[in-house]
């Protein structure tokens, strides 16, 4: 087995657009769950709306900045639409509504009635909406090597996309870091602990929950944009499994921490690619077909999530004390 190649693959995936997209989505989910205690089971819906918002508006001729704005706006609208009726209810209802709403977005996106707009189940090919983003690149069209990774400068999975993606992640972390340490973040953490107590102290809990839902959703949408800029918009590629992976990533890295979601995403994709690559190299194809290796990778993801919840519920970066003390 070529461990050098395996290592390169792992590194490539860790820093790639998928890991970036999931990191952004998990940062958003962290605002929902880690900070505010909202159980959002439909983060993929926010991602898909961001993706559609970006792609459809670009195809309609919108410039790059407007396309980003449309993606963000779609997520804001979706969050308001979800939050206004449900945030007055408690806890688990939001989980049910969000998972259903994300499915609705997916089903509507792939419906034949909207084929002209969204491409239906086929989706929108990458080339139909990537040009504005790639044209904005300051780099010449070339292939550059950095360490073991060689990539095109401006194509789908390119240095340009990675740089923009990681800058977005860095900005998102900076924003979360600032907010967590502000009185605003304090109110959110109070709501996570006991919303009645916070209400009794004169804070408008409903408005804060809505703000958190919108802000986290916007990061989800940005993740969705990065996700499709590396491939294509295809409703089924942003379905329920994406939400569950995002949860795994958040819990792996550590909820309620600033860098947890990013670390979680790096490790999640590194581990997945490593397991698959290792099994492919070590187990002969007569025993496990390529297809089966792929699936075993996901089985291991599920197992990791279970073990994580049991043995390290606070995640890698989480504060054991913050989670161990649970008076309720």
């Amino acid at each position, binding site marked *: 087995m070529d461990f050098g190649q395996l290592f390169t693959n792992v590194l490539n995936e860790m820093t790639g657009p998928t890991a970036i997209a999931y990191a952004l989505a998990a940062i958003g989910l962290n605002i929902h769950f880690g900070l505010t205690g909202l159980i959002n089971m439909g983060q993929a819906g926010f991602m898909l709306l961001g993706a559609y918002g970006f792609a459809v508006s670009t195809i309609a001729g919108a410039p790059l900045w407007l396309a980003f704005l449309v993606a963000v706006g779609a997520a804001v609208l979706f969050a308001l639409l979800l939050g206004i009726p449900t945030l007055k209810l408690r806890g688990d209802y939001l989980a049910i509504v969000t998972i259903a709403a994300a499915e609705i977005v997916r089903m509507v996106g792939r419906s034949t009635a909207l084929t002209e707009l969204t491409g239906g189940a086929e989706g929108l090919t990458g080339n139909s909406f990537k040009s504005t983003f790639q044209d904005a690149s300051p780099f010449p069209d070339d292939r550059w090597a950095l360490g073991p990774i060689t990539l095109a400068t401006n194509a789908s999975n390119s240095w340009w996309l990675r740089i923009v993606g990681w800058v977005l992640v860095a900005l998102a972390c900076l924003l979360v870091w600032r907010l967590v340490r502000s009185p605003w973040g304090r109110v959110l*953490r109070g709501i996570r*602990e*006991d919303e009645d107590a916070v*209400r009794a*102290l004169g804070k408008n809990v409903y408005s804060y929950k809505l703000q958190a839902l919108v*802000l986290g959703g916007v990061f989800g949408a940005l993740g969705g944009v990065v996700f499709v800029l590396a491939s294509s918009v295809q409703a089924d590629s942003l379905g329920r499994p994406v939400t569950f992976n995002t949860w795994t990533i958040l819990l792996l890295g550590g909820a309620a921490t600033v860098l947890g979601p990013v670390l979680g995403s790096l490790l999640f994709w590194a581990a997945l690619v490593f397991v698959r690559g290792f099994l492919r190299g070590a187990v002969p194809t007569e025993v496990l077909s390529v297809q089966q290796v792929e699936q075993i990778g996901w089985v291991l993801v599920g197992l990791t999530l279970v073990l994580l919840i049991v043995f390290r519920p606070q995640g890698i970066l989480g504060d054991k004390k913050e989670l161990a003390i*649970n008076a309720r």
Partner: protein
Amino acid sequence: MPAEDVVTRARRDLHQVPRTPGAPKPDALLVADGVRRSFGGVNAVDVEHLEVQRHVITALIGPNGAGKTTFFNLMTGFDKPDTGTWVFDGTPLAGVPASRVAKSGMVRTFQLTKALARMTVLENMRLGAREQPGENLFTALVKPLWAPREREVTEKAMALLERFKLDTKKDDFAGSLSGGQRKLLEMARALMSDPALVMLDEPMAGVNPALTQSLLGHITDLRDSGTTVLFVEHDMHMVRHISDWVVVMAQGQVVAEGPPGEVMADQAVIDAYLGAHHDTDLGDDALLTEGGTIDAEAEAEADAEETKA
């Protein structure tokens, strides 16, 4: 006028108030009218009229299920009545959400303490303060805009924590405090907003006797510094000891009110709630020995019944 004089006068004014349910007070801070709340067929709260005098300590007592906590919930916007209006400090508050009730100066604590367990004691306290620019999402991003207010809030929090002897615990998670300390923290947190009226729901429940005395002291201090206090309590010693006025509820209605000494001597109140032995401490060992007061009375009763038979 200094705060002590105001309090003294408010307490003196109570002497003239008639000892009837729903009596008007000379300077009422909270006035409730026709507040009714039923769960299924049961009238949990059915208060015709109730006034709470400003600057004094009013106790709300009554048997379990009398509707005391429900009445608290209604007044503070945590529950909605079927009918009824109430005015707090001149502002009608019926139908106003809980957060706005708290903002208007009526702050409550809970029977089951709601310390925010996974936040530090100091963070708990800071959360109680009002008018924090940093609690706005956009202002929060620019620290210089909220740092000065944060410093004020922290200073105030530390002063209060010192008063409640929790200052050494400021960096501990609230979840690691004892039950009594959590009660103290919740009360201190409520005071962060300088409320006009503090509503304490069973402040003594589950508090270690050693802390009781200091908790009582804190409550009378509150009154003496100009805050009006309304509290629900089952501990009759405490009620007798610190309250200036007692309101008795039974089956949702106000059945009696008056100064603690008079109300507790009222035969109707004794029958409805207190029982003949409300004044004897069951923790008193003397009662457990053969021939104690209760034993003697029980024997006398038994004898009397035997003679009848």
